[in-house]
């Protein structure tokens, strides 16, 4: 067994430097690596390019890095729900690359799968297609999109073992499963880190080969963005 375990979030983030490109998993606030984000704020790493479907909210998730102006560029599909983000974007302080969500996922997956580029119909005929190669397949127009190149990928899983194997829970799987192994170094933050042999190989979503470092997060707030419930009758 090749042991991927590191004891602290500080050790896990070793080597993340100013101006690097980092992928961060999560959809909205669900499944974000919240311990690693908090440590990046403490560390003060700056001029980051972040690839993440969303940009958090003002006081949680990537919003915390935005507040401290640590992000130079955001690559996302949807950035509503964040006033500070909007302010920085409209004033030109923050560079923003909006990408269709399925394209964003596939650009991660392509990097994970060692595929340099692919064609998708998403965005054809829109601003997103500007400057991109267009080709027709089966009578339909497609645009060429490139795999992402990132220095680090930080994903969050529910359970993991010391070999780096990961299991996600519910819709918190989202971009985490596509980003694992999609950068030079993948860091996995898990709610529960178990000894090898604890997880059934049949149930592993991401095999440990995709993960270089794994640590158990100290605490998880797991904030809910839109709490919607129904009354019991």
């Amino acid at each position, binding site marked *: 067994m090749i042991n991927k375990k590191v004891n602290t979030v500080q050790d896990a983030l070793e080597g993340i430097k100013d101006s690097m490109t980092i992928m961060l998993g999560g959809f909205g606030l669900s499944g974000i690596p919240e311990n690693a984000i908090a440590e990046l704020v403490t560390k003060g790493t700056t001029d980051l390019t972040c690839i993440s479907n969303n940009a958090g909210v003002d006081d949680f998730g990537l919003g915390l890095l935005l507040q401290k102006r640590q992000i130079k560029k955001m690559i996302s599909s949807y950035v509503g729900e964040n006033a500070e983000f909007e302010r920085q974007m409209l004033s030109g302080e923050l560079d923003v690359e*909006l990408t*269709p969500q399925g394209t964003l996922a596939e650009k991660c997956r392509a990097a994970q799968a060692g595929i340099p580029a692919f064609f998708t119909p998403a965005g054809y005929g*829109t601003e997103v297609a500007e400057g991109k190669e267009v080709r027709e397949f089966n009578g339909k127009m497609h645009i060429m999109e490139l795999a992402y190149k990132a220095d680090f990928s930080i994903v969050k899983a529910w359970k993991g073992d010391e070999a780096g194997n990961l299991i996600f829970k519910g*819709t*918190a799987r989202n971009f985490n499963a*596509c980003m694992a192994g999609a950068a030079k170094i993948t860091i996995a933050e898990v709610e529960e880190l178990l000894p090898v042999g604890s997880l059934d190989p049949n149930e592993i979503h991401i095999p440990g080969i995709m993960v270089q470092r794994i640590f158990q997060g100290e605490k998880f707030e797991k904030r809910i963005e839109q709490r919607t419930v*129904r009354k019991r009758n």
Partner: protein
Amino acid sequence: MALGKEEIAKRIAKEVKDGYYVNLGIGIPTLVANYVRTDIAVEFQSENGVLGMGPFPFEGEEDADIINAGKQTITTLPGASFFDSALSFGMIRSQKVDLTILGAMEVAENGDIANWKIPGKMVKGMGGAMDLVASAENIIVAMMHVNKAGESKILKKCSLPLTGVGCVKKVVTELAVLEVTPKGFKLLERAPGVSVEHIIASTEATLIIEGDIPEMIID
């Protein structure tokens, strides 16, 4: 009488057929789930990675790890599944999802749709909308026919940045049901008590009107 949002959702629910996998956008489309017939088999897909979405959870049973694309806490029904974002859009692109219902700021008579950006004012991003409209076979738009100033959002040509080209099949508004045909918008139904003249006056695009136009059946 022009329809309210719930009534637009009720009318669209009639388009949901037995055996359909359906993706619902944020806003009026989300309400559609409440009005789909209960005697047919339908599964709702949410692009953040769930098939077989159920109703909102009971108070106290919310789970931060189980949400829909609107970031709302949800439940799952028996037979549900979770998957990652790449597979989620894989099933959308490969047209496994039978019906996509989404909102729009503008729709044009050639089927173009704009719903993600107002230059200089609002930029929240396209989320999954561009992938959905570029791939889905059957796209129904739920939207208001006119804006608050009374100007038509059913146009000859979209003025806002596009989300997708030539993709919308049907539009349901507070005034009418329109079908996008190769020749432009065809008026299929009108809201109860709303005249054809009123719809024509509220529509910038040219409408194809053939014979008597029936009223929508809402309930």
